[in-house]
């Protein structure tokens, strides 16, 4: 999964890393000034959180289920809480792997996994 991540320039641009916890793969978005959307709170840019969710869904599908890059059809993000200046984690779950379409659910949190900051639903063409 790290090899796939390193091949994606945009993943390096955001500074996304992959972390293995037992059987689980998490994507990690370390906090830095460059990802701030609202400096007054401060809060991470909604677009960055959306992109982080999309990247996590893409990586999960590409690394585990298919042998060529899936093409995005659409992506929906729900913003649940303001994401503060700390590390953000995301985990994706392949909800349905069809012959032509895959549906991936993804959730992001910061210090408490029971308090997600954002969730997403991504569809890909295989």
């Amino acid at each position, binding site marked *: 999964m790290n090899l796939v991540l390193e091949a994606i320039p945009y993943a390096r*641009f955001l500074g996304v890393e992959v972390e293995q916890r037992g059987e689980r793969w998490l994507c990690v978005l370390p906090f830095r000034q460059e990802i701030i959307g609202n400096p007054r709170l401060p809060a991470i840019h*909604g677009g960055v959180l959306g992109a982080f969710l999309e990247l996590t869904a893409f990586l999960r599908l590409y690394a585990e289920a298919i042998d060529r890059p899936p093409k995005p059809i659409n992506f929906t993000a729900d913003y649940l809480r303001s994401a503060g200046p700390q590390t953000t984690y995301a985990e994706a779950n392949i909800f349905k792997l069809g012959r032509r379409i895959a549906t991936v659910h993804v959730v992001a949190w910061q210090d408490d996994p029971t308090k997600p900051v954002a969730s997403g639903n991504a569809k890909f063409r295989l």
Partner: protein
Amino acid sequence: MSDEPKLALEPVFGPGYEAMTHHTPHAVYLGLKVVETGPLFAVMMLPYRPEIVGDPVRKVVFGGAITTLLDHASGLCVACSLQVLEAIATIDLRVDYLRAAEPGRDLYARTECFRLTRTAAFVRGLAWDKDPSDPFATSIGAFMIGANPGGSPFNRFTA
């Protein structure tokens, strides 16, 4: 004579300028530019650069960068719809990828606030590379008005 109430950002409507993204660190990092603003709409541009590519073989910009372009342009068009500036936060955003964006091209987005209530704004967006009539992505989103007591960063446009 129009009885329409004045919009807060009316004094800056017209062509965008560099300082309109300076208050958002990520917009600066990504290189987002404001092309134009007006009543209920905004046009923004994401300059092409190799760092934001998702597929190194096809050189196509990663979908997430397009999400950021549409999200930011959507928030800006909500600010362009308010009579009193308030903090704006994304409730949800859906992006449909109609086709791959053409490699090497700057990407544009036009967003429009088609319904505004006291607490929420509803926005649609269109993203294109060459021709606005041939978009590569569309978006629809809901935004919260008065999301936090911090006020609007767009106040700086009019200060």
